[in-house]
């Protein structure tokens, strides 16, 4: 096991010359999927996400982050597993619980935090905030705030990717709450239709965290088998234990390969749990019991993975602490970066409304001088 540990140490030590996590999600030339080295790397990414989200919560309470704040805490294995199967040129689209997807695709934590802080160095230059993270050069096509509203877009991405003759796919993340919207059902119907002749390579990844805000799945739909709903639209589907990174990883590799080859959509319902409140304003959590949260906490994806890595000898106390310390340092640097970044210049108010050279006619004219018009 010493050999494994040595390799591990090289990957997790303080500085990562390879850059952010995302550069390593494209595994061309990397070791086999699911080998200890890969799992330790994904563990490191998941710890970074957890540490980042925890820091967000503190910053929100200090008033440094405005608006809404939706944390991915507890759901890390879902995005980490699926984004491990991301290939350059693929498109990722998700709802508003999007920090993890940005980080896992390799966005600088500082740029993500600066966006949450509403600063000019933010991922979208302070135009979007927590719910609207974009990094199209890394495959992240948003970050959308209306539950279910992004789903038709992802289906359109998939159609266009195949229309243009590529073998890229769309990874479309949605929550259990989104599956009750009309947008979901209309988009799933189109995906099934267009996918029937191989023209809609989209993977629906349902992050079933059991609640749409405070309303549980059984209180939202009488048909609680969410994966099965895709069957109504001719889309093959399965469930996966979203707390078990290895299970997600196996599923993701297999499913993304299949969708890439066939051009047909596929749906995975990942059973997971939001260990954090719905949003940072969700203080009392009247809709769920402490016992329920605790029972899921026992299946915390980080704890499960760490346990497995320790059992296999891939990490020991020192390595775990080093990973934790690395994440703390990285997030501390992100906070410092965000704090130091300036607010956007006021001229940015009127930029990015329209594409192209057209003068934006909604912009007020320069004030008239003393002589009037």
């Amino acid at each position, binding site marked *: 096991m010493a050999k494994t540990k040595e390799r591990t140490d090289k990957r997790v030590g303080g500085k990562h010359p390879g850059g952010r996590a995302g550069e390593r999600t494209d595994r061309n030339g990397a070791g086999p999927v699911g080998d200890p080295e890969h799992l330790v790397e994904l563990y490191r990414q998941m710890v970074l996400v957890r540490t980042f989200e925890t820091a967000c919560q503190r910053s929100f309470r200090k008033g440094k982050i405005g608006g809404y704040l939706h944390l991915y805490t507890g759901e890390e294995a879902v995005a980490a597993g699926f984004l491990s199967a991301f290939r350059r040129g693929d*498109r990722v689209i998700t709802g508003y619980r999007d920090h993890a997807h940005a980080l896992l695709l390799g966005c600088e934590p500082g740029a993500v935090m600066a966006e949450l802080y509403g600063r000019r160095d*933010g*991922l*979208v*230059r*302070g*135009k*979007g905030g927590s719910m*609207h993270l*974009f*990094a*199209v050069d890394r495959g992240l*096509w*948003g*970050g*959308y*705030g*209306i539950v279910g*509203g*992004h*789903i*038709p*877009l*992802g*289906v*359109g*991405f*998939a*159609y*266009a*990717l195949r*229309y*243009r003759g590529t073998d890229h796919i769309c990874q479309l993340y949605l929550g259990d709450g989104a599956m009750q919207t*009309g*947008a979901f059902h*209309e*988009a799933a*119907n*189109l995906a099934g*239709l267009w996918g029937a002749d191989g*023209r809609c390579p989209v993977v629906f990844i349902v992050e079933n965290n059991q609640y749409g805000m405070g309303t549980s799945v059984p209180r939202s739909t009488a048909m609680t088998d969410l994966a099965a709903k895709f069957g109504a639209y001719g889309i093959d589907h399965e469930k996966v234990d979203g707390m078990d990174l290895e299970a997600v990883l196996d599923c993701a590799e297999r499913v993304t390969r299949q969708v890439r080859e066939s051009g047909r959509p596929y749906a995975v319902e990942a059973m997971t749990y939001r260990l954090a409140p719905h949003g940072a304003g969700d203080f009392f959590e009247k809709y769920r019991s402490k016992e329920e949260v605790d029972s899921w906490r026992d299946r915390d994806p980080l704890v499960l993975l760490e346990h497995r890595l320790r059992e296999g000898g891939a990490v020991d106390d020192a390595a775990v602490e080093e990973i934790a310390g690395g994440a703390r340092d990285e997030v501390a640097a992100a906070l410092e970066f965000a704090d130091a970044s300036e607010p956007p210049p006021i001229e940015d108010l009127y*930029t*990015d*409304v*329209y*594409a*192209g050279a*057209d*003068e934006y*006619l*909604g912009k007020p004219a320069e004030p008239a001088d003393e002589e009037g*018009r």
Partner: protein
Amino acid sequence: MAEVKTYREALREALVGELDRDENVVLVGEDIGVYGGTHLITDGLYDRYGPHRVIDTPISEGGFVGAAIGMAMAGLRPVVEVMTWNFSFLAADQIIQNAAKVRYFSGGQVKVPLVIRGPNGGGVQLSAQHTHSLESFYGHFPGLKVVAPVTPNDAKGMMLTAVRDDNCVIFLEAGALYGTKGEVAEGDNAVPFGRARIAREGGDVTLVSYGRQVALCLAAAERMAEDGIEAEVIDLRSLRPLDEETVVASVRKTHRAVAVQEQWRWFGVASEVAAIIQDRAFDDLDAPVERVSGAEVPAPYAHNLEIAAFPSVDQVVAAGRRVLYREEG
């Protein structure tokens, strides 16, 4: 060179031209393919371009408009037909929350080169749910462009511009006028957005309108000419962006203005036109700006009631006379 064509033929000619020019152009909508299009705008195109470029969709506006937004973000140039604009409410979340804003909230990382087109307005006895004029509804949202051509030449020329635009264009067709004819320039007659057309020159009063009501204003102008009043008729064509300069220049010449719209009066385009005039040409005005609008009721079915619900030539003439102080009250 110009040839006389119907509004419908002019639209189809523009679509064919763009489909031939750019393989990223696709058509999306209900019954636009095999059926030939409810209003026959896309008749014959399915056979010519095939099912992957002329995409028949289920009755599912939110789904297919949203998917078309995604296609546009991914590099295609979809032209979506809404069978009538009345059905666009089902897709309003997609149009307003995604197409209009995604460029902004992505910090300029994406664009949405998308046209949504279909018949707007009433006049064919379709009653309340199938009769709306949605120009101020969509014109309200930054990020959208809104155009409403009334002549066949503009229908073609503005469609060419719309397909080539990198933004979401709300293309409001004069549905009641699909069969009307006019001269259409051959070849590439792209008409830029944000420039109004002077449909008739005159020096006594400015009538500002767009869409089907331009024809009404021209008829009213002829009637007024019988009394020696020369009205200038401005066809705005493009509502967002809106050509303030042409309106203001005309009012500086005539000193009087009437804004005419089929839609309801409150919060309408005519109110915006009146506000622009008072902002920019207050001292030039010799009378308050008049508005002629549709009746503040859901559209009725019965022929006589529908006629009464929309502006009439008489109303426009009366308003023109009032701003000239030729008529009481």
